[in-house]
């Protein structure tokens, strides 16, 4: 084995009172994919930010190609050949695709020193085409889907000379096809001798790609070694510090009568002629690629963007759902796709957030009872196993999984009978993921009718009782019998299989 490209020794970083890293050490070799695993909050992104020049370590050294370096700012990192795909895309939503790439590399300019826009746009197009993302360089980024934004973020990182490519959860928003393309590119770069640091929570992807694995916990390295010395189970044990029995618990539940039925639901430019049924105690999975229209259907059911035509029946009676309040009156709850912008008020406390959807039910003479609020918070923290220093902690300071539990808690406080979950485990670690599945399972057992949307097929197939597929806004085949055939479902999701072979 050659000399390491990057050697990190004793890296430490504190944010105020929080210790994100303490004495983390690892080595990255050229031509190797190195996976960094750890729970939410283990300090992975902090390490990435240190290598990217965003943060400076409080202690420890970074050696690049044998000599010690400091990386004072992001431009220094790029000059050293370090390219980063950040966990949350580092984009400027009001600027266009092309404008977003000009800060990454020296932008093409004319002799007048003004920007050469045709060249900028050409560059952007080339970079995106490499990923198979055919985006118009003039589109403002805020009009892109989150998947396309992620692709743009990756495209930016692949511009220019790269010696070390860092991918911090690049696949959270991507569909299978795009993940495959990314994997191909990573393999190509690896062959060219680039070192790749890969951070991810989807263990199957990690083990498909990684040559070496480092597991970190509480800011330090727990173990590091060749990938073939790990199994997903052993990696999880190191991450969590205990064995996680079952990531996808599945309770056997006696199904009740049909709780929610949808007939011929249609919304222009979004979905067409959708018909579904969910029973009490049942978890119905909606499978599809990103952009298949599942979120739109969920929003239609919740009254955020009501459908143009079609019928919604709750308990067999047709209901009109024109607003979230209508939906809530039917005891429908919706855990949205993007917990940061749709799920929780980040700059407020857990205690503030939990009663938000149930305020009308818990006020007396217009006032909130502090006691009931405290009870709600304490109950949710306890029942949902939210890890926090207390109900007054800001939600922004919680890990992703715990934030998601707050969203779930907010909706469970409304005492729902129908629960729609849109990608509830996006970006959260295995331990938390198992807990979320456990909670969903418990709710199903209590007789809730659950609709689960997920981009992680493995999860969907393991947790759902029944799976309906969607392809570009149209309903595809339905798979009603467990265990499901992954190839078949994937085929249906991608429009290749027209009928369920069930």
């Amino acid at each position, binding site marked *: 084995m050659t000399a390491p490209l990057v050697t990190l020794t004793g890296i430490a970083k504190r944010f105020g009172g929080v210790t994100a890293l303490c004495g983390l050490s690892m080595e990255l070799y050229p031509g190797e994919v190195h996976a960094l695993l750890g729970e939410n909050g283990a300090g992975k992104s902090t390490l990435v930010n240190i290598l990217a020049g965003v943060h400076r370590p409080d202690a420890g050294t970074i050696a690049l190609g044998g000599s010690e370096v400091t990386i004072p700012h992001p431009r220094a990192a790029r000059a050293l050949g370090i390219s980063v795909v950040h966990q949350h895309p*580092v984009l400027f939503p009001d*600027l266009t695709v092309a404008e977003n790439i000009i800060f990454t590399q020296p932008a093409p300019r004319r002799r007048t020193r003004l920007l050469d826009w045709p060249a900028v746009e050409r560059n952007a197009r080339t970079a995106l085409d490499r990923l198979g993302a055919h985006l118009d360089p003039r589109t403002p980024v805020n009009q892109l889907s989150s998947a396309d934004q992620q692709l743009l973020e990756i495209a930016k990182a692949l511009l220019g000379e790269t010696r070390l490519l860092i991918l911090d959860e690049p696949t959270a928003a991507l569909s299978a096809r795009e993940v495959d393309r990314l994997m191909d590119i990573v393999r190509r770069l690896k062959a060219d001798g680039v070192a790749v640091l890969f951070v991810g929570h989807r263990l199957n992807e990690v083990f498909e790609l990684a040559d070496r694995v480092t597991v970190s916990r509480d800011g330090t390295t727990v173990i590091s070694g060749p990938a073939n010395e790990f199994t997903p189970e052993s990696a999880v044990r190191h991450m969590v510090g205990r064995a996680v029995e079952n990531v996808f618990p599945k309770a056997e539940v006696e199904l009740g009568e049909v709780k929610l039925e949808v007939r011929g639901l249609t919304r222009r430019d979004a979905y067409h002629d959708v018909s579904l049924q969910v029973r009490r105690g049942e978890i119905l999975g909606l499978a599809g690629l990103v952009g298949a229209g599942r979120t739109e259907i969920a929003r239609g059911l919740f009254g955020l963007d009501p459908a143009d035509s079609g019928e919604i029946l709750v308990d067999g009676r047709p209901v009109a759902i024109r607003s979230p309040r209508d939906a809530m009156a039917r005891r429908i709850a919706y855990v949205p796709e993007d917990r940061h912008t749709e799920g929780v008020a980040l700059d407020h406390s857990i205690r503030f957030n939990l009663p938000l959807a149930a305020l009308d039910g818990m006020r007396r003479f217009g006032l909130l009872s502090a006691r009931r609020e405290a009870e709600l918070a304490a109950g949710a923290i306890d029942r949902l196993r939210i890890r926090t220093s207390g109900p007054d902690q800001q939600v922004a300071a919680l890990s992703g999984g715990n934030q998601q539990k707050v969203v779930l808690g907010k909706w469970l406080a409304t005492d729902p009978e129908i629960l729609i979950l849109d990608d509830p485990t996006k970006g959260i670690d295995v331990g938390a993921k198992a807990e979320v599945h456990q909670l969903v399972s418990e709710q199903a057992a209590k007789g809730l009718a659950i609709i689960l949307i997920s981009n992680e097929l493995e999860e969907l197939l393991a947790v759902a009782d029944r799976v309906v597929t969607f392809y570009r806004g149209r309903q595809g085949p339905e798979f009603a019998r467990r265990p499901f055939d992954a190839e078949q479902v*994937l085929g249906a999701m991608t429009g290749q299989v027209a009928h369920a072979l069930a």
Partner: protein
Amino acid sequence: MHSPEVLPPPAPPAARRRRSPFAQRELSLAGVLLGLLVVFSVLVPRFAGLDTLRQVLADMAIVVIVAAGQALVLFTRNIDVSVGSTVGLTAYAAAAVIAAHPGLPLVVPIAVALLLGLVLGAINGALVATLKVPSIMVTLGTLYVFRGADSALAGSQQITAQNMPPSYTALASWSVAGIPGMFVYAAVIVVAAHLVVRHTLTGRALLATGSGPDSAERMGIKAGKLVFGAYAVTGLLCGIAGVLWGARYGTVDSSAANGYELVVLAAVVIGGVSITGGAGSIPGVVLGAAVLTVIGIGLALLDVSPFWLQAIQGLVIIVAITLDLVLRRRLAARGRAA
């Protein structure tokens, strides 16, 4: 587990192609402006003509100059509500210098105003950029501080055109081949600002900072410097506006340009600059100022009672921004359909 064989052909890119929203904004504003011109030409026969054009160009110059600066600040997700006071203070300083020493070369009062403006802008910029405190608070505070300084400096003094040498008032009144000099200043500033904003990395970085402050930090964009720069430039432009204010309106006292910040803010926001940062363009700002100026001139020429003026002006502003919104939605819908 994902096999590439079953993947569908890539989605046609045309489905997501959209026209840039900036172009839409300018197009719809130009439509509103055109509509106003037509309406006024029909209502007031004297409106249509070169004289009006000249007057519009000269009248909007000071607003445009200050608004260009304000836009830079708004791009970065900040605001400067002290511009009215800065214009007033610099206007007084320059006029006082030239009135006290009429023999001095013109560069002296101009330099005084520009330098003072720059310093005032830099004070705002330093407070906002280095201490990262809310800009509305800082500049609402300096609005009062600068106005107080103006009042302390000017006291009961009033400098009128008679105290200024003719060469000073000529700064505002010259014209060449029928093109007002006021327009020339504004045009030079606007073109320069547009080139910087639209066609340089610095300009795009300004918008980027406002669009995503966290992203800017991670990209290594020096947001602090940009914010400071935007305020300093705004101060400088207010200094220029101050000189022109005195030269054009001929009377400067401690209340000059009092409340002007709202006029400027209206022009900038009508021009499509988002007060939450990141979005807007200089041509949009020019159109916003033009819309406001045309409304003002058109209504003044229209034989309405002065008691009706303010109400109609307010109403027209509301109608204009509503129309602009409707037009933009139309254009966006058409862009999607095409």
